[in-house]
Structure formats: structure tokens, C-alpha cells
């Protein structure tokens, strides 16, 4: 029983255990084909849709319609669809542990709920950020090729779309993780993510009340669009980032509080 060097068990340590748990979460995420598969699907679909929308913009433009749009922003717009794959993977990363029972192993290894949640949040946030930063430039190539002159863009367009997508996908993953912690089952978490990013904007649009129409502007997907397009009205990119951070913090915080109070 003395074959190993014992790592001292100091109860106050936070950073070391958090880094260790983050490595573990990274291993778990990358080791699951269902999650990496969802990410691959989201990436491929975004690239394909970027190409398709580019071609469509070109066709419309040649028919005299004013549909020209910088190619990176066009790709960003297709994330409306691709984001569902990424958010689903983020929710499943947690809820899959509940449905299989292995959350028991996770919490036996990392019993402090705050550290467990933070380690998952780090990994999902980093994966979302990296995906956005790489995916926009990557998908911009086919979109720019198919859109031709109707997809002309500058470096600033590429930067704001890439940074915007990275920030948005990172925070979206945290929202999905938060919903996963609240529901602790895959179906509930994924349905609520879908409602948040697709259902709510669509349903609320049908209600002709002014304050509801204002409210829609503050939903995550709308805030993301204002952030990436560098809008001025109704609010600018910095306010948009703040709104997204508030969404992420609120949902993740609610989820963290919920599992702290509940038995595993």
C-alpha cells in the first residue's frame, strides 16, 4: 500500500485539483465518439452551408438583388444551425454521465461540486472558443469562393466574425452545461437548449407586444448576431458580449447551485 508517492491531501487546494480535473474532462470529451461526432457534423454542416449561402448570394446578386454580405459574416449566420450540434454535445458531456451513472465516479474523484463544474466549464468553454476561432476562417474559404464578388470582405470582417463565433460558442456551451446541471438528463437539457436558441426567438416574434419585441433583442442568438456584425442599434458589440456573459453566468450559476444542494 506504499507503492505510490502520495499526493498530500490538503483540503484548501483549489488550483491544482481544478487543473487536474480539467485534464480529466478533456480526456473524457475527446474519448467519446458521440461528442466528437457531433462536433464534426456541426463543422461540416457549417462549411457546406457557407458554400451554399455564398452561391445563393451570388445568384441573387446576379439577378439584381442586393444580397452581398462579407463571406465571414455569411458563415457566422449559418451558425444559427451549426450551433445546435455544439450545444447538444456540451449538454451531453454532462448529462451522459448522469444517464450512465458514472457521475458517481466523477464525484468520487472530484467531490467538491464547484471544482467539478468549473473543470467541465473550462473544457467546454475552451472547445467552443477554439471551434469558433478555427471554423469561421475555414468555412469562409468555400463561402468566399462560391459568393465571388458578392462575398467580398476585409480582415476586420474576418476578425470580428471569428472572435464573435469563438466567444458565442464558448458561452453557449456554458449555457448548455448549466441547463444540463439543472435537468440532469439528456432529453431535458437538449430540448431546453433548443428552446433557448431557436424556439424562444421564433415564438416570441409572433407576439406583437412592444416589450416582448424588445426582449427578443436580448436573447443569446440575437446578442450573438449584434456582436459579430458590429451593430450599433439597439446595442453595440461590447454590450452584446456583456449580455452573452450574463446569460452564460446565470444559467451556469443556477446549475451549479442546483447540484450543490442536491444529492448526486
Amino acid at each position, binding site marked *: *500500500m506504499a507503492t505510490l508517492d502520495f499526493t498530500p491531501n490538503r*483540503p484548501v487546494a483549489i488550483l491544482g485539483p481544478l487543473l487536474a480535473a480539467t485534464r480529466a474532462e478533456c480526456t473524457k470529451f475527446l474519448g*467519446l465518439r458521440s461528442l466528437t461526432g457531433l462536433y464534426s457534423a456541426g463543422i461540416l454542416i457549417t462549411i457546406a452551408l457557407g458554400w451554399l449561402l455564398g452561391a445563393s448570394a451570388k445568384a441573387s446578386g446576379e439577378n439584381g438583388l442586393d444580397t452581398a454580405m462579407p463571406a465571414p459574416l455569411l458563415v457566422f449566420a449559418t451558425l444559427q444551425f451549426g450551433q445546435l450540434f455544439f450545444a447538444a454535445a456540451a449538454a451531453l458531456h454532462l448529462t451522459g454521465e448522469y444517464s450512465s451513472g458514472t457521475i458517481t465516479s466523477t464525484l468520487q474523484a472530484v467531490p467538491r461540486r464547484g471544482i467539478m463544474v468549473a473543470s467541465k466549464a473550462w473544457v467546454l468553454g475552451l472547445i467552443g472558443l477554439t471551434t469558433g476561432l478555427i471554423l469561421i476562417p475555414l468555412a469562409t474559404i468555400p463561402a468566399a469562393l462560391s459568393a465571388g464578388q458578392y462575398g467580398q470582405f476585409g480582415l476586420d470582417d474576418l476578425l470580428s466574425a471569428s472572435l464573435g463565433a469563438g466567444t458565442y460558442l464558448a458561452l453557449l456551451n456554458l449555457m448548455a452545461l448549466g441547463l444540463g446541471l439543472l435537468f440532469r438528463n439528456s432529453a431535458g437539457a437538449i430540448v431546453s437548449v433548443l428552446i433557448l436558441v431557436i424556439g424562444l426567438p421564433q415564438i416570441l416574434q409572433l407576439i406583437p407586444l412592444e416589450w416582448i419585441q424588445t426582449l427578443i433583442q436580448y436573447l443569446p442568438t440575437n446578442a450573438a448576431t449584434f456582436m459579430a456584425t458590429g451593430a450599433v442599434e439597439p446595442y453595440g458589440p461590447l454590450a452584446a458580449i456583456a449580455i452573452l456573459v450574463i446569460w452564460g453566468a446565470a444559467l451556469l450559476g443556477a446549475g451549479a447551485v442546483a447540484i450543490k444542494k442536491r444529492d448526486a
Partner: protein
Amino acid sequence: MITLEALTKDYGDTRAVNELSVEIRPGKVTGFLGPNGAGKSTTMRMILGLDAPTKGKALVNGQRLDQLAYPMHTVGAHISGTAGHPGHTPRTFLRALAQSNRIPGQRVDQVLEESGLGSVATKRIGGFSLGMRQRLGISAALLADPQILILDEPMNGLDAQGIAWIRHLMRNRAENGGTIFVSSHLMSEVQQVADQLILIGRGQLIANGATEQIINDFTQRVITVRSPQVQALADLLASHNAQVKLAGNGAAQVTGLAVEEIGSLAFSHGFELHELSAAHGSLEAAYNRLTRDSMEFAGPESARN
């Protein structure tokens, strides 16, 4: 050393664990017995910090487990049927656990070999049998080579070879100073390995002591007598408050009297005896009796609450 101090857990109006106070000491295998639903898993989950006690404390070496930075170095645990995501391979599952507690990576392959899962290290857990998943959970508990092992129903689904392996493992570690806390709902599973037994029923402590002691205290001795005049002898013994069952072939099974008492009664009344022998009741029988009693006792008790 695991210390439970008046450990209590309520689920709504139901008390799953009631004021459980025991110590589980090093150098011993401690069996944790009770029927299904007695509160064994709940107790173990509270020790591990998975569930929060309603009242009382569960301490490991004087500390709460959920306050430790790298708890797997102190306690290895396996809760039956929970090890691993079906989409992961055993190696990925164990590697992640090792990383989370800063356990050297080579331990992953060592425990996989020890538990007999070396050949399926890169297969997905989803295709595993219950027995293989049990082996995986136990190997996860052994990753950091901890001094304390907490195993919830580890023999469920294991084949004879697997049971022999886990028994040997528990004995071996206890003899090297380890603390082994193992639950089961079957007395026969732990009877041979446990030095100490803790019996619970409906969340209540029924008995706590050395295995031998519990057998002696709680088993009724069954005494076999054979005599050509067995019917008359049976009547005589019954009149001295013994329970007598005729077993055919001139034999009777007697409980409630000692061998010496039966011998002297037979002698003083001039019975011819062909056999007078005492057999220890099995621990299984003692356990069934104890837990049955706890049910009868607990029934009206909990109804009053």
C-alpha cells in the same frame, strides 16, 4: 478508519439511515450486511460525499471526504453498476480518473491487468457484461492504491473466478493494514472474508461485532438426537421448553436446549441414545433471523412515526 457518528438520512418522510454510529477499523475486512433497501448504499454514498447526511457525520480518517483535494489516494470506492460511460473505453475512463487525482499514468494499465481487463482495454464499456463492469469499477477503486476501500455489492454479477479474485484482494489488502468496507445483501458472500460484521435493517443498526462473535451470539444451535424411543423423548424435551422437530429415522432436531441438558434429561429418564450432536447454525440462518426480526420490529415502529 471510517467513523460514522449518528449518521442519518431522510428521503421525505422515509428514514433511510437512522442514527448509525460505528467505526470501521484498519487491518480488517468489515462486511456491511442488510436486506435490499436497508440503507447500505445510502450510507456508503454519504461516506463518499455523494449524498449529504440529514444529521450526523461520516468521517474518513477524521475528515469529510468531500473536503479532500485528491480523495482517491485516501479512499477507493466502487458503487455497483456506475462505472464508466458506455461510449468510453476502460483505458479512457481510468486515464481520466488518474488525471483528476494526479495518479501516475502507468497505474491504468497495471489495474487493468490486475482486474483481468487487459485484453479489452480499448473496447467500449457499452458492450461489457455486468461482471466486466464490476471489475472495471473495482479497478478504478484500486487506481491510487488507497489504504481504504469502500465496495458496494462488488460480487454482483461476478463469476466464480471473479468472486475468488475480489475475496483474495480484500483479504490481502486487509492483512497489509488496509481498511476494507464491503456491502452485500447475501451473508454467504462475505461470511468467509469478513473479520467484522455490521448488520443493518431499515436503516437501523442490528448488530456490530466480530464475525465469530455474531455467529455465536445469534445462531441457534440445532442439536440432533437419535433414539429408538424418539417420540417419547421428543415429548419429554418439549415439556422442558425445547422446540423439537422429528426428522424421521428415529432422529429429532432440537433447539432451545443445550447438548448437556438434553444428555442429562435422556439419562435421568432412561432413554437409549444413538446420537447426540450439536451443529452450528450457519451465519446465513442467523442473518435471516436477525433481519426478519428487524422487519417485524421496524414495521409497527415506523408506522407510529
